[in-house]
C-alpha cells in the first residue's frame, strides 16, 4: 500500500517535470508559421527571396544621417586623413593610449583587409594595398550594439538616426563591444585623462569603466557645424555627410552616381557609412 503510493507520486512528479520542461519548446514551435501552417510554410522563404532580389533594403523613415568616404581623394592625400583624425581627437577629448590593448578609437586608420575583411584580398591594386582606410562607427540603421545594451546607454536618436551614447548610464558591461561587428567601440580600462594632450573645455572626457565611440559630432551638428572630420576635408568631397533619406541631399547625389560599398554588409546591421574604393 505504502509502496504503491510512492510509485504513483514519483510517476506524477516525473510527468509534471517533463511537461514543464517541454512546454516552452512546444509553444515556440507552434508559433512558427512554417510548422503551424504545415505545407503553406514553403511560401514564406520564397517571398523573402523575391524581396532581396530587388536589392532594395528596407530603410527607416525620417532623417537618417550617413557618410560617404571617397577613397580616391584620400589615395593622393593620406595627410588629410591624419588631419581629420586629429580634429576628432581634439573635439572629443579622445585619449591617445599607446598600448593597443587599451587604446580608445573614434575614427582610426586601418588597411583594406581589416576594414573590408569580407572582400577578396587577392591581387588587390597597388593603391588599395598601399593606403590606409578610415574606419569609424557606422551609425547602423539596424545597430546590434543598441540591441545588446542592457541599460539603454546606447540608443538611436530618433530625430536623425545617430547611434548615440549616454556615458552617464553606461555600466561598462561591454556587451555592445561584443555585438558591434566593426570594432567601433572602445573601453576605458583606466582613467583616460593623463592620455589627453589638450582639452576641449566644451566637451567632457570619459571616466574609467565606460565605453565610448564616434558620436557623428551630435554636439557640433546642434550648432549648425559639420562633423569635425568632414570639416577638415571641406571642398575635396573626400567625406560627404548628410541625410540618406532625402533624395535631394548631396550625399544621395553621390550615392546615386557612384558605386559604393559598406563594411561587412552580411552582418545585417545596415551601415550608414559608404565607401568609394
Amino acid at each position, binding site marked *: 500500500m505504502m509502496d504503491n503510493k510512492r510509485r504513483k507520486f514519483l510517476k506524477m512528479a516525473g510527468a509534471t517535470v517533463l511537461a514543464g520542461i517541454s512546454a516552452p519548446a512546444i509553444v515556440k514551435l507552434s508559433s512558427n508559421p512554417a510548422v503551424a501552417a504545415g505545407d503553406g510554410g514553403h511560401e514564406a522563404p520564397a517571398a523573402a527571396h523575391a524581396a532581396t532580389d530587388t536589392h532594395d533594403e528596407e530603410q527607416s523613415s525620417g532623417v537618417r544621417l550617413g557618410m560617404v568616404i571617397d577613397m580616391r581623394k584620400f589615395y593622393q592625400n593620406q595627410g588629410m586623413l591624419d588631419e581629420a583624425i586629429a580634429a576628432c581627437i581634439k573635439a572629443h577629448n579622445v585619449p591617445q593610449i599607446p598600448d593597443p590593448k587599451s587604446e580608445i578609437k573614434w575614427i582610426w586608420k586601418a588597411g583594406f583587409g581589416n576594414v573590408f575583411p569580407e572582400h577578396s584580398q587577392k591581387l588587390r591594386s597597388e593603391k588599395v594595398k598601399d593606403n590606409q582606410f578610415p574606419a569609424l562607427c557606422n551609425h547602423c540603421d539596424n545597430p546590434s550594439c543598441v540591441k545588446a545594451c542592457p541599460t539603454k546607454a546606447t*540608443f538611436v536618436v530618433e530625430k536623425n538616426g545617430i547611434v548615440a551614447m549616454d556615458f552617464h548610464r553606461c555600466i561598462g558591461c561591454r556587451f555592445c563591444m561584443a555585438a558591434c561587428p566593426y570594432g567601433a567601440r572602445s573601453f576605458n580600462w583606466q582613467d583616460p585623462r593623463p592620455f589627453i594632450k*589638450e*582639452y576641449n573645455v566644451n566637451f567632457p*572626457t570619459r571616466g574609467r569603466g565606460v565605453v565610448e565611440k564616434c558620436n557623428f559630432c551630435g554636439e557640433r551638428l546642434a550648432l549648425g557645424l559639420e562633423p569635425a572630420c568632414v570639416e577638415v576635408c571641406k571642398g575635396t568631397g573626400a567625406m560627404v555627410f548628410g541625410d540618406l533619406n532625402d533624395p535631394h541631399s548631396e550625399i544621395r547625389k553621390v550615392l546615386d552616381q557612384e558605386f559604393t560599398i559598406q563594411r561587412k554588409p552580411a552582418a545585417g546591421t545596415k551601415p550608414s557609412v559608404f565607401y568609394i574604393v
Partner: protein
Amino acid sequence: MYNKGLIVSGLVIFVLLVTFPIWFNGLDAGPLPKPELPPNGTKECVAPAAEMRDRHMQLLNEWRDDVIRNSSREKIVVAGVEYGKGLQLACMQCHSNKEKFCDSCHDYAAVQPTCWECHITPDEAAKKEAQ
C-alpha cells in the same frame, strides 16, 4: 517588567551612542559653508538662488536628458547672455572655481557627486595647459 535596570540603562547607552555626533559637537552644526559668488560678477543665475540650492541636481539631470536623449539643445538666455545646457557650458562659466563653490557645500553635506570624473573644471583645464 523583568530586568528593568538592565534594559533602561542599555537604552540610555544606546541613545547616547547614536546621538554621539550631535552632542560631541556641542549641539552645533559647525560653520555654515559660504560658497563663492561668481568671480566674473554675474548676478543672475538660470533660476533663483533658493531654487538652485534645492534642486540644481534635478535641473542638471533634466538638461542631461534634454541634450543627450531628446537632442534638444536650445540655449538658455539669462540677462541677455546665452548658455548651453550643461555643467561646463553653463554653470562653470560663472562658478569658475569648483573648489570654492561646489565643493564648499558638498564637503559640508558629505556628498560626493561624480560629475567631475568626466566634466572638466577650469582648474583641471588650467593644469593641463600648464603641462
